């Protein structure tokens, strides 16, 4: 159990957008991987990061803390953070924590991409 049960992969569907696919558990173990993925997603100057949570199995309060950290970094670099594919349960948690006010939330990746400028 004591290792990251998560895989994070980065895609760039458009030059301005980096998509991070989160599969598995977003917990404290995912910290390094998530920060690496963030760097990779923004290397080419993409200013929009979409976190695709369709493959998310479990996120705990540490995972939420990681998202807050990521959000702080993105804000610092004037980047925009979006999320898609969250289950109803985690949508509810985003609302409870008011993360939804800082991270744009979309049901599907295509909706998130459509909301971003070309």
């Amino acid at each position, binding site marked *: 159990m*004591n290792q990251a049960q998560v895989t994070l992969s980065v895609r760039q569907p458009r030059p301005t957008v980096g998509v991070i696919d989160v599969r598995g558990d977003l917990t404290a173990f995912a910290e390094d991987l998530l920060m690496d993925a963030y760097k990779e997603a923004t290397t080419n100057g993409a200013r929009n990061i979409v976190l695709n949570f369709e493959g998310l199995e479990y996120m705990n309060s540490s995972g939420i*803390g990681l998202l*807050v950290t990521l*959000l702080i970094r993105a804000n610092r670099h004037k980047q925009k953070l979006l999320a898609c594919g969250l289950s*109803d349960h985690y949508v509810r948690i985003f609302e409870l*924590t008011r993360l939804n006010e800082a991270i744009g939330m979309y049901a599907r990746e295509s909706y998130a991409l459509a909301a971003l400028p070309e």
Partner: protein
Amino acid sequence: MAVQGRNWSSFLRRRKRVERPAPSIIAPQSRPADTTELQIAPDDPIIAYFQHSSGAVDIEHLKLDSPALEAMRAASVRLVVPLVSQGELIGLLNLGPRLSQQEYSTDDRALLNNLATQTAPAVRVAQLVRQKQVEDQARERIDQELRVARHIQQTLLPKRLPQFPGWQLGAHYQPARAVGGDFYDFLELSDGRLGLVVGDVTDKGVPAALVMASTRSVLRAAASRLESPGVVLGRVNDLVHPDVPPNMFITCMYAILNPVNGNLVYANAGHDLPFHRHGSSVVELHARGMPLGLMPGMEYEENMTVLAPGDGVLFYSDGLVEAHNSRRQMFSFGRLQRLIAEHKETDAPLVPYLLHELERFTGPGWEQEDDITLVTLQRSEEVMAAGLARHEHDDKTSDTGRVLLTQFTIPSEAGNERIAMRQVADAVRQLELPPERVEKLKTAVAEATMNAMEHGNKFQPEVPVTVRVYASHAALSVGITDQGGAPPDMGARAQKPDIEAKLANLQTARGWGLFLIENMVDELHVTSGEHTHTVELVLKLTGGNDGDDPA
């Protein structure tokens, strides 16, 4: 004076009760020591003749159509002296011709008659002693077999009734003298449910007891796999079928009670249908299925009912409904159904009430024909109290109407909260909660477990976190206990996480755990002992909100 005859003979044998004795004679042979036993048929007219004759009978000129008479003549019997005791012919003294070749004299006859008069009672006594010895031996054999059968049976019946808060169980087993094959069993399943079995093997004595024993074992093994009653009976049937002797089979009712929500799922292998009482109505719980052991590959219909507070179910065997009174009337299903409807639990429990009614029906001196088995399941009227934390101090958990669904410990290693989450989810599956409530509970359990492992047990793997899951009619409670005692500083709890403060670096990015827990459950109770610290998560199951309000 001696009577010199060639030989004597012997006695009519008494057999058991109903059968007429098949008398025999021992016919004279050439030397006194040689005797031949001749049987006299019970309907031979010579028996009546001898019974009513007074004294020695010279058979040479006797005119009777009697095979025994022919046999005696063929064996050279000349004189027969009947031995009569209390009007009953019990034997004959048979004499051949006198060795002197002279006829038997009057004195000889008087002597023989005198001898017969004195011998008859002694012979009778000897016969009775012998008969008693034979009967004693037979009874001892039967008693020994009954003892074995009864021992097998009573060893395998439950020694105690399971305790399920909010439920009353009752059981009564009353063997008939011959010991039938009734059995009942309670199976406390690993998922917190209760299996109830009532069965009857069609036979008596040791063979029935052995079949009952093997059926019980197979059923226990099959039930432990937590399969549904119909599947279990199908499996048991296939397993016992090869070993059940021809002409023997087993009727069996198997039901599984979920003590938390009152769901009763049941299947029936040809057993008497249980009665379910709800209010003033009493209905039979129907489910189709062949008795066990008749043929393999049978399918068993499965049905479900819900036992509301105050409801009761009676499982029973045919010894009760088929009991006869002195007028050969049967107790009957209809009478049983009516009695259950009339019965008030407040007066007396159902079992003694029914036994009293049975006694009234059969009257005194009734000889029980078959085993009587009664198993009752009664749900309490009162609604269970919610708010389980209030009972932490008196620890009278068995009085609070809650059931322990599961209890386990996990080592304090980061990531192990997933184990707690999964096991709690497994344990509450039987409650059939809405999926979103289960997700919330899982999140709360995970967060509380993480806190316990990290803050309470300092991530020392050898120091365990204990998780206990209780359910009652009104609430689900998950207690998560670490070994850290009271936390030194509860101040962290006071600071509500705020996303804006966090983004402005006024709060750490972390610190969401307790906030999440509070919003996932209906109640949160924290108790600390000297060495332990327990967080109790409560979900209300009736009447409460579902924790959806984040205010």
